[in-house]
């Protein structure tokens, strides 16, 4: 099917109205980098790439507005030039999330709600989206949220936008909160800890007032794969001005004991970028899962699921699992749920068109609410139908 490429709000409205008239669903594509994430939607591809460019950026307001198809790299480069960043650290990777040659857009980043290692400290994509403009499945142009950092006027539709995978509306413009970028990044690395000890150490630091912005554990196999290191790594990141980050890193070393060592900016940045991209798990085409669970349950979940390789981030609150060729997806969902969390099948061998197991199963009440919200925003079910859940 030929690719639709609307260039204005009006053209997008027309395209969606016509999709309704012809009962011909659309697959919304930003940069196409996360096209393989989630279930496979069916429908005619419609590219948001023409909605490109930064609309306004005022560093002193800590707010940036950009068209949804603007590449994440362009946004990050504009922010960097003013000493700012997107604090939720969206991975712009060319590995896990990306198909070859595809660059992530800001709209896709929000729609997929991807956040990096800093998430546990500063919030997720959802927390940094202030407002948006979009066309819903009825072909109505509307806006949600605002363009200032503090706003409770009306329902918080930006929260609904983040992580909706284009199933409710196609965003054409987003307004995000920006933050000062760290002037210094200092790491603390503890070699060779066993999983339980490493995770306990990370939790201890998460409970400290030292404000770490990275708390990750790589077992030996993952450390070897990513960095060629022959022992496990317990990694802690501190950001801020140099004196402050150094002081906090030194306090952390004192807290966890003598085997901890200080790691410089460059290596810390490289390591946490690899963690953001789940790089230690990407050596082959194995299935990859992402578990969001209470940090205290991380060790239990890993033991029960026996991944071929794994990586723990957010002090154990986020687990990346590489699974063997034979396993049961339902078991992963069940183990995640019984440990108070949930799992998402991020990368898989199979075509996911009819898979029920990509996103976590919903309870009855949530299923009803989700279906009603789909009905409210996209009654003709023309936008990314089936991307998250069957028929949604």
């Amino acid at each position: 099917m030929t690719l639709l490429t609307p260039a204005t709000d009006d053209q997008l409205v027309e395209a969606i109205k016509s999709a309704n008239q012809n009962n011909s669903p659309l697959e919304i594509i930003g940069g196409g980098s996360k096209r393989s994430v989630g279930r496979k939607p069916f429908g005619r591809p419609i590219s948001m790439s023409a909605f490109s460019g930064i609309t306004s950026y005022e560093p002193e307001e800590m707010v940036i507005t950009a068209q949804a198809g603007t590449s994440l790299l362009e946004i990050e480069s504009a922010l960097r030039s003013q000493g700012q960043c997107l604090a939720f650290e969206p991975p712009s990777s060319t590995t896990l999330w990306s198909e070859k040659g595809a660059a992530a857009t800001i709209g896709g980043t929000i729609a997929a709600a991807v956040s990096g290692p800093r998430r546990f400290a500063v919030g997720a994509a959802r927390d940094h989206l202030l407002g948006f403009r979009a066309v819903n499945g009825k072909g109505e142009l509307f806006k949600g949220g605002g363009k200032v950092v503090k706003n409770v006027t009306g329902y918080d539709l930006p929260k609904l936008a983040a992580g909706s995978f284009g199933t409710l509306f196609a965003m054409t413009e987003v307004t995000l909160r920006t933050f000062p970028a760290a002037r210094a990044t200092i790491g603390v690395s503890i070699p060779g800890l066993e999983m339980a000890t490493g995770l306990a150490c990370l939790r201890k630091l998460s409970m400290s007032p030292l404000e770490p912005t990275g708390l990750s554990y790589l077992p030996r196999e993952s450390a070897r794969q990513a960095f060629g290191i022959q022992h496990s790594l317990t990694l802690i990141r501190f950001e801020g001005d140099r004196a402050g980050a150094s002081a906090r890193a030194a306090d952390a070393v004192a807290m966890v004991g003598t085997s901890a060592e200080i790691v410089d900016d460059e290596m810390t940045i490289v390591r946490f970028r690899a963690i953001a991209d789940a790089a230690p798990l990407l050596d082959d085409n194995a299935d990859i899962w992402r578990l969001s669970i209470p940090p205290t349950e991380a060790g239990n979940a890993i033991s029960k699921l026996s991944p071929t390789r794994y990586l723990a981030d957010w002090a154990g609150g986020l687990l990346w699992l590489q699974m063997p060729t034979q396993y049961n997806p339902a078991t992963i969902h069940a183990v995640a749920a019984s440990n108070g969390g949930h799992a998402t099948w991020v990368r898989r061998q199979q075509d996911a068109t009819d898979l029920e197991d990509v996103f976590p199963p919903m309870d009855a009440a949530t299923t009803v609410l989700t279906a009603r919200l789909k009905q409210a925003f996209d009654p003709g079910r023309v936008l990314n139908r089936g991307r998250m859940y069957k028929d949604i």
Partner: protein
Amino acid sequence: MQMPLPDPDLLRQRPFLIARLRKLIPEGVIADDDALVAYDTDALTAYRQKPMAVVLPKTADEVSAVLRFCAEYGVKVVPRGAGTSLSGGALPVSDGIVIGLSRMSTILDVDLENRCAVVQPGVTNLAITRAVQDRGFYYAPDPSSQVACTIGGNVAENSGGIHCLKYGLTTNNLMGVEFALMDGTRVRFGGKAHDAPGLDLLGLVTGSEGLLGIVTEVTVRLRPVPTSTEALLIAFPTIELAGACVAGIIAAGIIPAAMEIMDRSAMDAIEAYSSPGYPKTAGAILIAEVDGAPVEVETAAGDIERIAKANASMSSARAASLIERNRIWAGRKAAFAAAGRIAPDMLCMDGTIPRRELAGVLGRIGEMSLRFGLPVANVFHAGDGNLHPLIMFDAMKTGDLERAEAFGAEILKLCVEVGGVLTGEHGVGVEKRDLMPLMFSETDLAVQERVKCAFDPAQLLNPGKVFPSLSACIEGGATHVHDGRMRFPNLPRL
């Protein structure tokens, strides 16, 4: 303010409904006319309306049972925490009941390793911090009413506070809720994990002002108390210079935990109320609080003092002790009460604007004050551009309330004109309901009303709030009702 017309059928059935509610919640139904006075308003005292009854459930199951009953009989429900809403969020309706959550005030679980606490909705904001502070933790959002306001109400209103600049609003500090829908079904959004699966329904219901359901349990994120905290009290000759200093601090890449500005009128009011010792000759003061590692706090405080000097600050003092810091903040947090002391009545506005518009907007508010003939005091969360002009008036004087409301509406209109919003943290409620079209198009509002319909198709929850027009839900949406009455299911003949 036009509220939906009461349904005479429902009013006639009041004795029957009360009797049935008493069976459901034997010790928790208030229906005596005198006792209902205590529930006829919230902190927006310009509006008063007694409900048919107030029900005070003690458990989530009781909340569900009451909701199920109300859904069956088409009884409207107004949820209420501590009744501290400044926007009339808990204003009752005459043909509905109030469900008060104050008796559900147990802290269920403190889980420091997962940095969260699970609490019932009637627990006060400050009680959460008090329960964990001796172990070095706290709950960050701190609305001025934190002694009294409940966490359930905070979730419903997405409440803010003075520390939002660095730590966010309620929505950024929540991990999960248990939520009772109008039909009594309870559903969990989120929990102790960082992210919730599926659509972000936790984010959607937070700040939904009691229109989508009732919060029956909350999991909040706890934070470790910072190692070091410094509060600076800086005096400026004019409010414009104080505003310029705030812009300079942000431009320097410093994110203080809080930045608050008060103008002369606000300082005078507070001084008369609680004597915190604010500088007597200053045109405005800035309170800036920085926290973190001691060395960072020292650097940031020094930087802020330099930026203040460059903006012609008259004096700058650091709180020498925790007691002094608390005294500085106690004055600020008492600002609303203080303004309420020097005038018989007060309206507190809550618009947010881009910071660059601060000086212009404050100038225009000053002009409006003269034109309307009503004094105004300005306190605001300067770091995030959230204004709180306090309009003082006397409701006993004919026309004063109307003038104050017109003044307030003009301020909010100006906020929207310069790229801001109607409310930064207090909510729309009844107060700003009719101003919603200033900010949202008809389509924008229709889209939001359909969200309401997805959760509460019979529109029984908190009617008359947030949305300016009366709509009824149809399959997959909302339709406007032209006869000016909301539709309700008819009561069965009994």
